[in-house]
């Protein structure tokens, strides 16, 4: 009894001492769980079917209104129609011109925007009544003019170009196209052609059919009284005419029977975009929803998940890897593992991803991982309540996702109740490790060979090829094996022989080539001088004015761009020396490597790569002639491929010289008009 009192006394001393000693080696335990407060929004309905929800919150003097029309998903006859409608909404009303409409909203510092079946407004509370009115008028009394239609249409077409070279955009498109099919509302996508075919009438019909109050919800959150909202809504939405949008069956979804790889070639890719996926049928109202949340969280839902710890922390393949699934009340959802990895490890990343998916199906998750995942949802749930919009979103979900009224009241309890057995059960049911679509969008020349030899569970995996639009195509040619007996030396010999033979080539001591170039309507003059012992001068002039000059005297050199002279760096000198001479191929070369056969403008060519990999020369397999030089240069922190193409070979003094050179970028074509051999050159040229 006495010791107990004493120890209590000591505890008090320690806890309230001036400089309490803390034990840093012990991780602090959390305090008692904070109380959460789940408010309910005020709700009311209009006669036309629209439901209204209001969450009052006066912390900040702002109000947000969101109109959501929860129609059943429907295919667009001409994909892009919905996008055009959303772009045309907000460009004026029957009574307010476009300029006045936009000017007034901007003047109030407010924002108002529209989707094809939604609208949004946000403003300071003092401006809200007018901003809300403008949103309502923009949504319900829009004016569609032919002029605006044409303008938005050309912007949309131009905008589609935007993502055409973006590897991750193409991967997302492929993910949906392959999961749901091009005719499914979730798989369809707009193309310049589909947008071109849309008429103004198509947009108006879409609006008249689907912009209806039957399935509409209006959610207002912020610094405003519900009575005031009621007045505003009655003033501006009561006249919205009752209408019921049509409901059509959705196309069937075709899961794959065996795992397959679907590849899209994008030669500009520095990383491969990976999607490993299968379609699922899961609704928020399903019993499996909570266990699946936890299973996904442990597999790939967070930084510390199986997938990220493997791909990022263990292997350093990627900046991040995650899995996710969506829910859909119509049964069309997708489970996806996604990541971007450098080209060389694309196949390994697939193997490791599948391994982790198998792991969660076959190994019971540890108590620790389970608790961790649950805590994450509990924490997120608690923290989300900081935003007043959360309460509104919950209420909206209960309505639109057909949830029980007490879904969110029971949320934490449901999360807490998930067991390790349930996690394994749903992992087996929803993560179909043997029936997955693996989508790779990347650089075929560097990744396809490995993909084709990839084995999962000891079995090779079929590789299908697609274009960027999701059309099945034949396997493109990326690179071919080198025939036996071909070496760097044999390629050089064939080249020298093709241009006129070793004897003739060795007699060339100097060359002056003069030519012209036309670039975007401007004419340039080009002079290139070279000597056998490695001096050179290249000059680009426009109307006598020197734009660009590089000179090398065998030891030192400089670049001059519009009169600004920059001496060669040590690195540039080394490079100039290496490339020196009119026909460097005459000298034996032990550093370079024959790396493969690739096509240059449809012609097969041997690729000879310098030891540092920064320069590649391409020699025709059939003619032996040099077709192209590719140099990798670091520019503004990024590596850029710069190529010089050689064509139009013509004989001068017994040697064939290319009379056309194309520098790309920028796509500058140089035509050589005269070639002088062994005349007209002095050392002064290279000063």
């Amino acid at each position, binding site marked *: 009894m006495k010791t107990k009192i004493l120890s209590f006394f000591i505890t008090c001393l320690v806890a309230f001492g001036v400089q309490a000693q*803390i034990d*840093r*080696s012990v*991780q*602090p335990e*959390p*305090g*008692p*769980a*904070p109380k959460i407060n789940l408010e309910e929004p005020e709700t009311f309905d209009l006669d036309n079917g629209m439901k209204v929800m209001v969450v009052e919150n006066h912390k*900040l*003097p*702002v109000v947000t209104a969101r109109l959501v029309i929860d129609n059943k998903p429907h295919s667009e006859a001409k994909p892009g129609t919905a996008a055009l409608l959303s772009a045309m909404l907000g460009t004026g009303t029957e009574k307010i011109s476009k300029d006045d409409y*936009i000017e007034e909203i*901007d*003047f*109030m*510092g*407010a924002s108002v925007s529209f989707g094809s079946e939604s609208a949004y407004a946000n403003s*300071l509370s003092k401006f809200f009544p007018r901003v809300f009115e403008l949103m309502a008028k923009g949504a319900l009394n829009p004016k569609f003019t032919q002029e605006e239609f044409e*303008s938005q249409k*050309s*912007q949309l077409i*131009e*905008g589609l170009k*935007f993502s055409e*070279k*973006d590897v991750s955009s193409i991967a997302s498109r492929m993910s949906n196209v392959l999961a749901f099919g091009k005719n499914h509302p979730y798989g369809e996508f707009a193309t310049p052609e589909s947008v071109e075919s849309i008429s103004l009438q198509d947009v108006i019909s879409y609006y008249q059919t689907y912009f209806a109050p039957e399935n509409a919800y209006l959610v207002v959150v912020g610094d405003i009284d519900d009575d005031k909202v009621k007045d505003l809504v009655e003033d501006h939405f009561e006249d919205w005419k009752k209408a019921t949008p049509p409901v059509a069956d959705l196309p069937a979804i075709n899961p794959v029977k065996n795992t397959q790889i679907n590849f899209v070639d994008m030669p*500009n*890719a520095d*990383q491969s975009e990976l999607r490993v996926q299968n379609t699922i049928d899961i609704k928020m109202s399903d019993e499996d929803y909570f266990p699946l949340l936890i299973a996904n969280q442990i597999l790939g839902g967070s*930084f*510390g998940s199986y997938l990220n710890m493997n791909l*990022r*922390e263990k292997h350093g*393949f990627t*900046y991040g890897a995650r899995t996710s699934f969506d829910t859909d009340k119509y049964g069309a959802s997708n489970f996806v593992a996604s990541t*971007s990895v*450098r080209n060389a490890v694309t196949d390994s990343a697939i193997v490791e991803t599948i391994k982790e998916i198998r792991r969660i199906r076959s190994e019971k998750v540890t108590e620790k991982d389970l608790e*961790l995942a649950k805590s*994450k949802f509990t*924490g997120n*749930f*608690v*923290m989300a309540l*900081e935003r007043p919009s959360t309460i509104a979103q919950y209420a909206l979900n209960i309505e639109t996702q057909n949830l029980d009224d007490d879904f969110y009241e029971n949320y934490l309890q449901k999360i807490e109740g998930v067991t390790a057995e349930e996690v394994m059960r749903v992992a087996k049911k929803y993560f179909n490790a043997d029936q997955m679509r693996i989508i790779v969008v990347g650089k075929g020349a560097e990744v396809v060979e490995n993909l084709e030899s990839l084995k999962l569970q000891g079995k090779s995996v079929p590789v299908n090829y697609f274009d960027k639009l999701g059309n099945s195509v034949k396997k493109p040619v990326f690179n071919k094996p080198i025939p036996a007996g071909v070496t760097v030396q044999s390629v050089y010999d064939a080249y020298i022989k093709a241009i006129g033979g070793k004897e003739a080539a060795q007699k060339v001591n100097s060359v002056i080539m003069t030519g012209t170039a036309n*670039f975007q309507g401007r004419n340039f003059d080009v002079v290139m001088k070279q000597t056998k012992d490695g001096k050179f001068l290249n000059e680009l002039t426009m109307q006598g004015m020197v*734009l*660009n000059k*590089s000179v090398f005297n065998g030891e030192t050199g400089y670049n001059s761009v519009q009169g600004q002279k920059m001496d060669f760096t040590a690195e540039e000198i080394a490079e100039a020396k290496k490339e020196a001479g009119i026909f460097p191929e005459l000298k034996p070369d032990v550093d370079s490597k024959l790396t493969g056969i690739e096509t240059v403008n449809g012609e097969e060519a041997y690729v000879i790569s310098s030891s540092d990999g920064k320069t590649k020369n391409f020699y025709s397999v059939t003619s032996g002639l040099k077709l192209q030089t590719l*140099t990798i240069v*670091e*520019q*503004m*922190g*990024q*590596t850029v*491929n710069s190529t010089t193409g050689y064509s139009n070979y013509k004989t001068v003094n017994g040697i064939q010289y290319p009379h056309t050179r194309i*520098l790309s*970028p920028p796509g500058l074509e140089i035509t050589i008009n005269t070639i002088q051999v062994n005349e007209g050159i002095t050392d002064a040229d290279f000063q």
Partner: protein
Amino acid sequence: MIKKFSLTALSCLLFGTGFSQEVEFTKYELDNGLDVILHQDNSAPVVTVGVMYHVGAKDEEEGRSGFAHFFEHLLFEGTENIERGEWFNIVGAQGGSNNANTTQDRTYYYETFPSNSLKLGLWMEAERMLHPVINQIGVDTQNEVVKEEKRLRVDNQPYGQLIFGMGEFMFKKHPYRTSVIGTMADLDAAKLDEFKDFFKKYYGPNNAVLVVAGDIDISETKKLIEDYYGDIPRGSKVEPVNIKEDPIKKAMVDTTYDDNIQIPLISLVYRTPGMKEKDSYVLNMISTILTEGKSSRMYKKMVDDEKEALQVLAFNNSMEDYGMYVIGALPMGDTPLNTLAESMDEEIKKLQTELISEKEFQKLQNIYMNRFVNSNSTVQGIASSLATYHMLYGDANLINKEIEIYQNITREDIKRVASEYLNDNQRLKLYYLPASEKPEGDAENQSQKQ
């Protein structure tokens, strides 16, 4: 050294308007030089613990671009009491979230938790400040991860090089010339000992500010902070970068290529004053005039009326010592890039020669009030703002007073600043073109690389 700002909060109560957006905070300094800022808001059970260190990419040694950001990654590897790989699990186990970010000027680490884990957050950041484990395994792993981040965010990203590449044109001496992400070669060159030295040099408490915001009790939090941070030894004094650039007097023109794009872009880039200067705020307003909202000048004219641009942009990339001001446009269809440049020049000329109208001026004030009100809507955002205003602007109370700076900008200021900084001979004209296709714009003076 305790400052308390409660006057305005009080006046709000008096007027009873419910306009309670004043961010009240307490600021003090520990004996070891650590600045502490506390903000109490008990309306939701959420707390953010953040530490900002006054070190960024501009403090890197020559040939070590990307080092500060690389180092930020290393500080998640573990500490003497937190095992490697456990950092994220510990945060996750309490339902929290965390992250960090590096700019040219500072590095910021934070955790946001349900408020019953305040102590945990304080412990973790103290672990990081006192004794992180910096070893070869971490360096090797994070080297790969950072390189993947660069590929993801810069190399494989359409227009990814635009922002990262401008520095080398705008700065000849100042370290702002290299990018935060760095180059692959520099990332590979960094050695373990350099990371250890970097920690010693820059990560002392005297070079940091600790911010705790959210559902806390001030006196209890102060005590915890004393416990966890009070005995962390002071580091050596950090000398801030002090390099002055010569004025740009000659126009620069350059072209760069990006193989991830199809639509070219033309941009005009100017060097502008540091973020603390009033003129930097004026430049923010100029961006708003030019491109914010569909009634903004460049959008209205170039996108809507003339239909020559698909998109227009203007922003002030403001940093501690200098800023980079960027105006740009993407062409619609075959519009030559120089046509866009001419349109942009006309708009700049207009700002330099005519005062903006009273109505446009009032619009700016409304926009900035709206932005100000929305900026402090989460405790995580408040914590980051308090740290930034304190460390880089030298006044944490700007979180409440910045709006006054904007309110005091006059129409004449706008004209003056446009005339002073946005001149033809002080800028880079950058043609940013698709690599694989023949450019659609009219590129002047194409430089030739052979």
